[in-house]
């Protein structure tokens, strides 16, 4: 149990030192990584631990980003207030949706979440006078921890204070999620994933637990979305489109959803991979699709699974 925490601490230190060694461009790229990683921590509670594949999870990213846009539009300057507000909003919205969705599993759960996601997308897209339609809503600059950092321009702010802030958020998010999945509650979720009927027989309220996982994952998604919205300065409906939900699933599978750190690895690999492919070829989607197909067919455990296999191989040799 202790080894992963040591590794996590080392990795966190490396990330904290990163701005001293890596060009600002890559530091800027880490902001969406933090955003997606936090969202994926939540997504994986649902997918990896509870066994429910949501194909509409981008909705909660959207709630985070649009929530930030609405709050800054109202003159709220504090990012912490925005985070609290979007977490609450996301949980409140996820509650009724989850109530309906968790009655299903497998492909029906996926389709129902997809339908809700697209419902939200078409609301954002069509109600032009409320949401700005396809041009989206502006997310103004906010202060963090009450500090303005007024002498920094936007880029400096993002690659400086905001980088550390998001790193901190990811660490806190990961610690909370670690606590959740290693608690009796997390054990319940895994039991439900492996054998829902038996869990029910043992007195577990299967739907209550699924609903709780859904709401928690929605809250994490909103935090990720707020970070993404802050970085771009814009909340636009593309963030909520079903292909974006597919991208979240892609990241989780790329990293390996069976592992706690898989989603974080997946989000980092995806961001770097996409960035490199985009600079390399106009047809990066094809390459991403081919990689996804290869992972699904040949390496269903993802990068984290490969790493574990490699570790076992090395351990086996030395023994």
């Amino acid at each position, binding site marked *: 149990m202790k080894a992963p925490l040591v590794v996590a601490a080392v990795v966190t230190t490396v990330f904290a030192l990163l701005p001293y060694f890596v060009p600002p461009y890559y530091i800027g790229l880490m902001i969406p990584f933090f955003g997606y990683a936090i969202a994926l921590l939540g997504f994986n509670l649902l997918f990896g631990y509870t066994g429910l594949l949501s194909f509409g999870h981008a909705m909660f990213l959207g709630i985070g980003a649009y929530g930030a846009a609405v709050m800054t539009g109202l003159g709220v300057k504090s990012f912490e207030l925005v985070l609290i507000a979007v977490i609450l909003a996301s949980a409140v919205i996820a509650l009724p949706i989850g109530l309906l969705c968790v009655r299903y599993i*497998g*492909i029906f759960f996926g389709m129902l979440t997809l339908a809700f996601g697209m419902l939200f997308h078409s609301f954002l897209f069509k109600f032009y006078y409320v949401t700005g339609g396809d041009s989206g809503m502006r997310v103004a600059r906010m202060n963090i921890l009450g500090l303005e950092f007024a002498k920094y321009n936007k880029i400096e702010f993002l690659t400086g204070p905001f980088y550390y802030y998001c790193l901190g958020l990811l660490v806190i998010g990961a610690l909370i999620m670690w606590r959740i999945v290693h608690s009796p509650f997390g054990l319940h979720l895994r039991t439900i994933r492996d054998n829902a009927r038996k869990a029910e027989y043992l007195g577990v309220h299967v739907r209550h637990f699924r609903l709780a996982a859904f709401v928690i994952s929605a809250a994490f998604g909103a935090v990720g979305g707020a970070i993404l919205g802050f970085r771009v300065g814009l909340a636009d409906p593309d963030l909520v489109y079903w292909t974006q939900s597919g991208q979240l699933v*892609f990241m989780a599978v790329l990293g390996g959803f069976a592992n706690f750190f898989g989603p974080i690895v997946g989000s980092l690999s995806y961001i770097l991979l996409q960035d490199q492919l985009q600079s390399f070829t106009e*047809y990066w989607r*094809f390459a991403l*699709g081919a990689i996804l*197909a290869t992972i699904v*067919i040949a390496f*269903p455990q993802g990068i984290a699974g490969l790493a574990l296999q490699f570790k076992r191989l090395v351990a086996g040799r030395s023994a």
Partner: protein
Amino acid sequence: MSAFANILAGGVFHAAVLFLVAAGLQLVFGVQKIVNLACGSFYALGAYFGITFIGYAAQFGMSPWLILPGLIVSGVLLGFIGPPIERLLRTIYSRDESFQLLLTFALVLMFQDVFKFIWGANPRSLDSAYLVYGTIGAGDFSMPVYNLLVILAAIAIACGLGAFLQRTNYGRILRATAENRVMAEALGVDVRRIYSAVFTAGAVLGTTAGALVVPTSAASLDMAIEFVVEAFAVVVIGGLGSMRGALIGATIVGLIRALSIVFFPEFEVIAIYVIVIGVLIFRPAGLFGRTLA
């Protein structure tokens, strides 16, 4: 009143195209238990290829009157992509549904760039060549004959598919395989060939639908990912795996879209999802689906 008839006619045309794609989706899900996200990509592929095919055919002196059969031929020709893709999917039949969904999502991503590579990022269209068939009308009501022919073709395909599945021996074998794959295999059915054939048929339904729609609207990169959610809505409303469901679902979605575009433009897409969610809440298996165990 005639304006209303025009709207309805537009809705029915849309429904006819939707039905073809949804029927392909249903066929594949019914037999192979795979939800194919790439059905929208097949549709877009049919559209792009249809434009190219008709362009070349016209250069070789094809009469403009042959545009409808020409497009159907181009759709059927694309069937050659079915077997290799099915071969790819074969690796994951025994896996979890989420992996199957993801593999078809990977296909969606790859197809997007294939279209961009071959046909470019700008929308392509077949300039109103379909008007060669003229229009029919009464008073203010008018409808291109081409649209009417497509609707008739879709109905013919629906009837043909139904008769094929219900009355022919091969159709019975298909349904038996859908019912119980292992038992069918034990009785000597070559399930691999069946799967390959079914997937190809599903793909051809999609490509043909795309080819048929292209004289009336442009082919664009967005059409694949936009259409697939609509086709999804159709099969959820109708019930996964049910042909009759695809027909009813397509009619509902086509008409609602047409009506809401005119009366409540804001609700154009929302109305569809509201119905989808309503159906899933009150009839989880869809209007014509079987209740799941």
